[in-house]
């Protein structure tokens, strides 16, 4: 029951599913609209294909492929709506996200292969250029442009919007951005219109229509039939240029790669993790995106023999949790068969104040190697961490413990946790000494305020 087979399932009871899904789709208004647009698109594509064969124009065929691509993305979004509607989202949500990525990848690759086909045909046409009839050329162009823009602007396809924003710019976008920047140098008023990043789909539609109109003009005026082939090549190259970054982006997601834009952040977090007390090294770190945007990962952490595993695990998870939502941390200990001192027997209630100093700029008290317990449970930071920005052990900060007004409602923090109050009060002090550290502090404050009143 846990697995779905998106392809096989449609094979099994195809018509029954289809009618059921159709009913489901028509019940929803949004998907109804998508369905109408898909129908329109199918109709338009059929017309265009007929006109393509009647005009014998390669460029129009290339442009039709864009329409087919639109149709693909529409159809995919319809399928998604169906899936959302009647497959339980909570169970398959991750897989569903993944399916979106696959859909984007497949449709961009398909349209690129279509463009490749166009290029091949164009090369053949350069050898022998057939006559091109211009009768329906312009009509077809404008019909296709109109429908494409209509569907693009009225039906928002979430994954495609995301990819087109997240992927690197295509060369078409770059050139348009460059041109519009120099245009804005002349007419500054246009900057709000031209300077933001262009939607690549709109761009390629408009550019293709433009080149088709030029083709029409040249064929009408001078009977240069070779222009048709040239503009087909141009449209094919534009399709390549536009779709390539998107397919690279989604392909990288499919290949389970670490997205390059989070590598800097990840490295920082991993460095922090490796400076935690007890951590010897971090290895086998794998991070990947499950769907668009949600990061998953697994990491192996080797720790000292006498370190508390659960403590380190909690700290590592806490660090990485901000960035990586689905995380698995495996803790390694070398030579664990030799019983370590008393790490396992250590009750949670004896935790020292400094255990929860979760902030990286937090400074440890001077290490006392003579005390056994203190070494085990001391701050998770190594003594070799960077020099302190401030020291919370300075008397001035401890002399006046701030009493918080109990503004927040009493929290049900019962849970049978036998935490001493001291960790949180010390934390409170520290946090108060460093205001403006972000959201986490507010949380800590609330906690600190709650705890003493409980006990």
């Amino acid at each position, binding site marked *: 029951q846990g697995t779905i087979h998106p392809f096989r399932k449609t094979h099994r009871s195809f018509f029954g599913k289809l009618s059921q899904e159709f009913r489901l789709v028509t019940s929803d208004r949004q998907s109804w609209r998508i369905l109408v647009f898909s129908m329109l698109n199918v109709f338009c594509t059929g017309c265009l294909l007929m006109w393509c064969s009647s005009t014998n124009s390669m460029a129009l065929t290339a442009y039709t492929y864009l329409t087919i691509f639109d149709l693909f993305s529409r159809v995919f979004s319809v399928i998604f709506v169906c899936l959302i509607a009647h497959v339980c989202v909570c169970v398959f949500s991750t897989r569903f996200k993944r399916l979106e990525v696959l859909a984007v990848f497949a449709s961009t690759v398909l349209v690129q292969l279509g463009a490749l086909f166009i290029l091949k045909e164009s090369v053949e046409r350069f050898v022998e250029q057939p006559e091109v009839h211009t009768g329906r050329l312009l009509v077809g162009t404008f019909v296709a442009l109109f429908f494409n823009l209509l569907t693009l602007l009225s039906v928002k396809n979430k994954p495609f919007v995301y990819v087109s924003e997240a992927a690197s710019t295509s*060369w078409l976008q770059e050139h348009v951005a460059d041109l519009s920047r120099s245009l804005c140098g002349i007419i500054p008023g246009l900057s709000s219109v031209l300077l933001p990043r262009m939607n690549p789909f709109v761009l390629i539609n408009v550019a293709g229509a433009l080149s088709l109109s030029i083709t029409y003009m040249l064929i009408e005026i001078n009977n240069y039939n070779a222009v048709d082939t040239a503009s087909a090549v141009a449209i094919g190259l534009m399709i390549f240029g536009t779709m390539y970054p998107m397919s690279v982006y989604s392909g990288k997601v499919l290949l389970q790669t670490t997205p390059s834009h989070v590598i800097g952040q990840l490295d920082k977090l991993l460095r922090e993790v490796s400076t935690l007390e007890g951590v010897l090294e971090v290895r086998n770190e794998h991070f990947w995106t499950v769907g668009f945007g949600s990061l998953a990962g697994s990491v192996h952490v080797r720790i000292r023999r006498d370190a508390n595993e659960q403590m380190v695990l909690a700290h590592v998870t806490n660090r990485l949790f901000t960035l990586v939502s689905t995380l698995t941390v495996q803790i390694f200990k070398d030579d664990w068969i030799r019983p370590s001192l008393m790490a396992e027997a250590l009750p949670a209630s004896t935790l020292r104040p400094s255990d929860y100093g979760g902030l990286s700029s937090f400074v440890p008290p001077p290490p006392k190697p003579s005390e056994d317990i203190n070494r085990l449970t001391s701050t998770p930071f190594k003594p070799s961490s960077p020099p302190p920005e401030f020291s919370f052990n300075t008397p001035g900060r401890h002399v006046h413990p701030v009493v918080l007004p109990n503004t927040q409602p009493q929290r049900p923090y019962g849970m049978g946790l036998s935490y001493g109050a001291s960790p949180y009060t010390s934390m409170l002090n520290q946090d108060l000494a460093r205001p403006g550290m972000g959201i986490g502090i507010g949380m800590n404050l609330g906690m600190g305020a709650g705890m003493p009143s409980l006990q």
Partner: protein
Amino acid sequence: MDDKYSSNVLSSGQLGMVEVPNARLTRYIVLLLVSKVLKALGIFESYDLLKVVHIVQFIFILKLGCAVILVFFQKPFSSGKAISKRQWIKLLKHSVISCIISLLGFFGLTLCGPLRTLLLFEHSDVVVIALLSVLFTSSGGGPSKTRGAALFIIAVICLLLFDNDDLMAKMAEHPEGHHDSALTHALYTAIAFLGVADHKGGVVLLVVSLCLKIGFHTASRKLSVEIGGAKRLYALDNLVSCIVLLPWVIVVQSSWSALILPFGMIIFSVMILEFYVESICIAKMEAPRCARYGSIFLFLSGLLLANFWTHPLTEQLRTMSKTPQQESTETEHVLSGGVLVSAIFFIMADSILSSPSKKGQKGTLVGYSPEGTPLYNFMGDALQHTSQSLPRFIKDSLKQILEEYDSRQIFYFLCLNLAFTFVELFYGVWTNSLGLISDGFHMLFDCSALVLGLFAALMTRWKATRIYSYGYGRVEILSGFINGLFLMVIAFFVFVESVTRLVDPPNINTDMLTPVSVGGLLVNLVGICAFSHAHSHGAAKSNCSSHDHGHSHGHGSHGHSHGSSHGHSHGGGMNANMRGVFLHVLADTLGSVGVIISTILIRQFGWLIADPICSLFISTLIFLSVIPLLTDAAEVLLLRTPPEHEKDLNIALEKIEKVEGVLSYRDPHFWRHSASVIAGTIHLQLMSDVVEQRIIQQVTAILKDAGVNNLSVQVEKEAYFQHMSGLTTGFHDVLAMTQQMESMNYLKDGTCIM
């Protein structure tokens, strides 16, 4: 503008180069304008002169006159240091090359007229170097330069394709029959060999000689320093070239004494004035701006002259030329639309390409200085990594390819396929058969799938990097998926084509088809034999459909491989890449078989409809055989639990539950990462008094038996949740944690997918 925020450092006004305002340079610009107009005039005139005067003689006279004037002005012998013998030899080489280049240039002038020569040949070094750097290096300097280069190329193509100069068609027939000299004759025959009209040959010749000229200028810079200044070099060069050309001129005797005046004008405007003005302007303005203005002036004046030039010399020349030519071919190069368009493009391209590159180096932002200005790091571009030499690169990659079985197979088959394709293409060109050529292109199109497969097989062995943390094994699956999509596209096109043919079956010429398709069949059979081994090793499990169809279709040559493949398909990892390649070859084979069958049917019975029906059938077959590959690859890409391991994994999970000390597990994710790697993550909840490492070891061993070889186990005890609640301290988090702790006893469904 958003320059402030981009990573473009040098573009903001204060930091970039300081441009001299135009007002101060007006004098020089006017000077440049005058010299360019005169030069255009000179070129037009020399075109007229070249109709009567032999080209070598013409160049000789130019060089001679130039040398006389320059020796008079520059005094290369009396001033400066003496020139050594080695330098004389260098000078000789230099002048020989310069003679050749000017010969080519003026020959191009005779071929395609003054205006086109101006447009093609008279670009400054800056422009051409920018163009070449865009074309041949990766760091071209931003999109604007790319645009400029594209404009330049479009302009040249415009001249080549859309410039239907009526006169050229006439000249292409070579009405003159005799040529003045062996040299021109050789050039003419070379151009005729290329199979293009004379004027197009001239365009090609001019472009080539432009590149030569630029290379020559760049190379001669060193010599000019050695000799002592560009002007001295120029003077000496002219002198030496005179001497070089002298013997030739003596052989070619003709009178030109009546033409002193036009020659003087040409020498003055083309050779001397332009040289001096250019050098002054480059000194006063910077070179890019000089190039921009110069080319704009030159092209505009060329356009104007082409419109209004009435060939004042022509009458005079005709009277003086000894052989009164019949001159029905009043050969004047007209101003056509194509030339106009390309002139506009050339002007735009030149102004873009010669503009100083605004785009600074791309730097990465490293931080902010104390004053608040951003600091950039230029490491990447500043230290340009040296490019590998090409032969070495080829050798290395060949070695890599041949190392492993899969890639070796693909490579050999690719070579075979390419050889067949090129034979087909050459034969097609030889016999002028369009069908063969088109089939050859189709084969090339197919080869791209093989190249993709080869590349993927090569990439699979790359080392894991920071980004590809599991290694590149997955590329193979992705490439299999893409190949599957490729086949779908092919099947779709064949389907559409055959449907249209079904409606209106065309008459097919079957003579050529049979040998070609038999050849293709043979090649593909070799491929099938080569790949069937790998294929049977891979997961042939889901290939049943293709196998069945293959049998029913009746080529049993590869049936045996399928028959044997069912047994051990579970054992080896699946190699989607090889499967994709195999299916591709299979599809090709089907295509050739279909062609053979339909040819036989058409020949024997005259059923024209057999061809579309055959291709319809084949496309359906391809489609059906691709579906399993696509679904399998998609399942892997979707991180699904591998179906062949599903049962084992369920058993393993049950075992894990029974391990002593384990309370429960959650989030078990297992997926196939690549052919050899099955990765997994699992979270375990333990009782608080067991040793974690022991459990980890046990669980790893259990899952390893189930096939998971890249595992991460997160072991959680109650203490962990307490720590976490202490750390995260958000109320909702705590609540969620508690719920998780309570639900630890739940048995979860084991085969959840990530």
